[in-house]
């Protein structure tokens, strides 16, 4: 393998043994290889994405017309609860773990994560949590009939979740599924930080560590600090439901607002936990597709750290309507606006990276551009929500729904798609179909914006969220119908993406080690990399070791980078 003074090797010979199907299955189930586990995380997340997407489609079908009768209130309430819970905990979080686990060891020149068995444990307990949550459909029986999934909303406000108002076991499955999966998230976070600190190849100081790794490390710190509050709150709720405790029992003096504080102390950092992979991915892909280094690397690292810190102090902007004091309503408005600043700085730096470059407008870059615009919109609607008096109107309305779908789909999903297309050749050894990729992109952009732009206006017109139907008289029909039509395009886009992934894996062109002419260490290994990642562990002198190798007259380390 490459060291500073040796050229890149020819494609390493990979020995392919023949396994029977049961041996292959065992190899996957018992694996501790970070690449396989990373892949399993991402594939699981995509499966849950499709399931939760179907739920969303049914929701939009129900809301396409006023007084619609596609589904009744109970089914609807379970659908939006499961949609949100699945997307956050079983799509977003495994994508964090999957991308981090696959790429971090490769990018830092290591052979695996610091704790490979912990890695495996984390994956399987996450999956078990998902199974537990979905088991509620058959096991969650209550007064309302045979088996039911949770219907308390993804943030499960007390006292709606107390036994008195939430009969049967559906809320218990909500608690158990997420609690279990949360253990996996913490395990993964410990692994990522320990790996980045203890397993970097020689020469890779923290300053030379790739931006992707930096962001995922800070993401892991957020997980370590912000997930336990949710775990604690869920334990408290479980005590209330099973042992008659009084944490959120307002009849005994318990506080409904306390649940909200604990939940959002988790919940707000959680949304940054979710979006950081997109930030991490963009910081790798935009430079490569602009043919320039990331503009302002130190500022980008500082910005991510700042976002991480500040995000721990904004949570009560979810609670502006709860009747907090004017001081609180002002403080949290201020902190929420401040957190937008380092986020904006990141957008500026990405743009500056592109400025003066030679932009290769292939699918990954198209998704980057989609991200930039849509996340900009999301950030600005976030500023609107941060202004607490404005939020008093917008809170719990469709404006809120529009904002977070812009951050999560327009931001996170688009960012993850950048990553999936970019690393697809590395993971599979083959190139995806570029024309299909571009077509899927445009369908997604059209569909996503058609669905969610009108929802801002629904919020302005006073439509609250989480309602299973609405009367014709309120002036909400047109925007709802447009919003629902957008779903068709999104389904087409996702379908094309899935087809591209599967078909290219079988019929795609051989990609080679480094199809994008990139600069981080994963591109120095084969596609896909062997189980041991690198024949010889690399030694690096800058943050772009492959650039140095390819440009010996003009290496980064000459400029102190």
């Amino acid at each position: 393998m490459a060291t500073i003074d040796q050229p890149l090797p020819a494609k390493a010979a990979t020995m392919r043994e023949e396994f029977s199907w049961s041996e292959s299955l065992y190899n996957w189930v018992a694996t501790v290889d970070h690449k396989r586990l990373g892949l399993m995380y991402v594939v699981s997340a995509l499966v849950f994405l499709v399931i939760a997407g179907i739920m969303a489609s049914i929701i939009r079908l129900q809301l396409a017309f006023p007084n619609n009768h596609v589904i009744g209130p109970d089914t609807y309430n379970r659908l939006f609860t499961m949609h949100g819970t699945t997307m956050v905990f079983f799509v977003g979080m495994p994508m964090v773990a999957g991308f981090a686990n696959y790429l971090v060891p490769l990018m830092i020149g290591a052979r695996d994560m610091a704790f490979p068995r912990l890695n495996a444990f984390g994956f399987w307990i996450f999956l078990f949590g998902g199974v537990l949550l979905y088991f509620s459909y058959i096991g969650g029986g209550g007064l309302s009939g045979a088996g039911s999934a949770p219907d308390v909303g993804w943030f499960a406000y007390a006292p709606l979740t107390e036994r008195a108002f939430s009969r049967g076991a559906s809320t218990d499955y909500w608690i158990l599924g997420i609690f279990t999966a949360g253990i996996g998230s913490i395990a993964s976070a410990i692994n990522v930080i320990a790996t980045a600190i203890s397993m970097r190849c020689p020469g890779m100081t923290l300053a030379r560590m790739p931006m992707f790794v930096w962001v995922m490390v800070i993401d892991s710190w957020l997980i370590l600090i912000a997930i336990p509050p949710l775990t604690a709150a869920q334990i408290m709720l479980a005590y209330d439901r099973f042992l008659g405790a009084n944490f959120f029992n307002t009849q005994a003096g318990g506080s409904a607002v306390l649940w909200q504080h604990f939940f959002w102390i988790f919940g707000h950092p959680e949304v940054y936990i979710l979006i950081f992979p997109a930030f991490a991915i963009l910081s790798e892909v935009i430079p490569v597709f602009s043919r320039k280094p990331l503009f302002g690397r130190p500022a980008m690292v500082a910005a991510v750290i700042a976002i991480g810190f500040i995000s721990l102090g904004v949570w009560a902007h979810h609670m502006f309507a709860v009747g907090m004091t004017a001081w609180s309503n002002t403080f949290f408005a201020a902190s929420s606006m401040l957190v937008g600043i380092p986020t904006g700085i990141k957008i500026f730096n990405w743009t500056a990276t592109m400025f003066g470059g030679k932009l290769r407008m292939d699918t990954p870059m198209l998704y980057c551009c989609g991200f930039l615009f849509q996340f900009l919109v999301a950030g600005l609607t976030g500023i609107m929500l941060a202004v607490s008096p404005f939020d008093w109107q917008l809170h719990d309305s469709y404006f809120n729904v529009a904002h977070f779908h812009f951050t999560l789909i327009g931001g996170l999903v688009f960012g993850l798609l950048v990553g999936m297309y970019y690393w697809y050749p590395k993971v599979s050894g083959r190139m995806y179909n570029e024309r299909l990729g571009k077509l899927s992109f445009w369908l997604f952009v059209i569909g996503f914006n058609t669905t969610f732009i009108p929802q801002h206006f629904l919020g302005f017109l006073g439509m609250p969220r989480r309602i299973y139907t609405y009367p014709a008289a309120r002036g909400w029909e047109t925007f709802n119908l447009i919003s629902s039509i957008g779903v068709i395009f999104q389904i087409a886009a996702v379908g094309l993406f899935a087809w591209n992934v599967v078909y290219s894996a079988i019929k795609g062109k051989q990609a080679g080690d480094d199809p994008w002419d990139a600069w981080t260490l994963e591109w120095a290994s084969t596609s896909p990399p062997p189980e041991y990642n690198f024949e010889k562990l690399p030694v690096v002198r800058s943050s772009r070791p492959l650039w140095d190798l390819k440009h010996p007259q003009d290496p980064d380390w000459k400029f102190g980078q």
Partner: protein
Amino acid sequence: MTDLGLLAFFQVQVPGIPEHRVTDIFKPLASPAAAERDIAWFTIAVTTLIFIVVGGIIVYTIMRFRRRPGDDLRQEPPQVYGSNQIELAWTVIPILIAFVLIGVTARVVWSVENASPPPSALHVKVIGHQWWWEVVYPDYRITTANEIHVPYSPDGKEATYLELSSVDVVHSFWVPQLSGKVDLIPNRLNYMWIDPKQAGVYVGNCAEYCGTQHANMLLRVVAEDRSTFRAWAQGQQKAVEPSVVSTGRTTFESLSCVNCHVIQGTKAIGKFGPDLSHLGSRSTLGAGMMTNTREHLKAWINDPQEIKPGCLMPSMKLTSTELDGVASYLESLK
């Protein structure tokens, strides 16, 4: 859902009273909503400006620096690592913008939230239930449900001061054209105020998911001139006293209805469901779901689950004669 259920969701238009059914937050008709609208426009202006500038630069960058056919791809562009001055500039400017927004926000938060009620303010307690609103006027000793009558205030001198709470889960009071929302939280008292500038009916929703029928927990604030309001209040204070006890009332008092509902001056003293003492004077049923007509009333009493599935009133399984009688009785409670 039956056809009647379908019909039930139709126009809730009570003849003669202007009803603000399209609840645009940019068409405020009370001071809190107006203050919120003003800061909304300011924020939208600032963010739109940012969007145009930043978005414009992104668009320009993409258009100008796209690869073109004929570009020499072996030639990498200048590898610029960064610029401290630029970083400083685009850190400081957003901080300044943020400070302006924070200052403006603080001012409006204080003016809306810490406004103290004028001595002549009307006090109303709104208590949230799954899925209806209990409305109490402590100074008038009135208890009603779902419809809140207040005097309107063209000169800004009449204000209604609301005290909000809940008996079960968290709800939220949102009548967009009057004010931003405030939550109704069990074991906690919250406060808000409204001063409707025009007479009319202001429509709103519960805005915090509260269970199965959250969607159909609708609000109606009826703003009327002082004398009409006083007349309404006086009417609500006294029990309806008919000269003859109707068969409907006898039926009502003999069934479990009395365990959940209050009708002043009768045996019905149950506190679980809405107060029905003057049901006939209300314009809607089922917390704003349908107009208060005989047809709808009969359908509701016959089987509330058909109209509002999951609501906490069971079907009373009355014979059609009993149904007619009870409906007539309740209609007469004006």
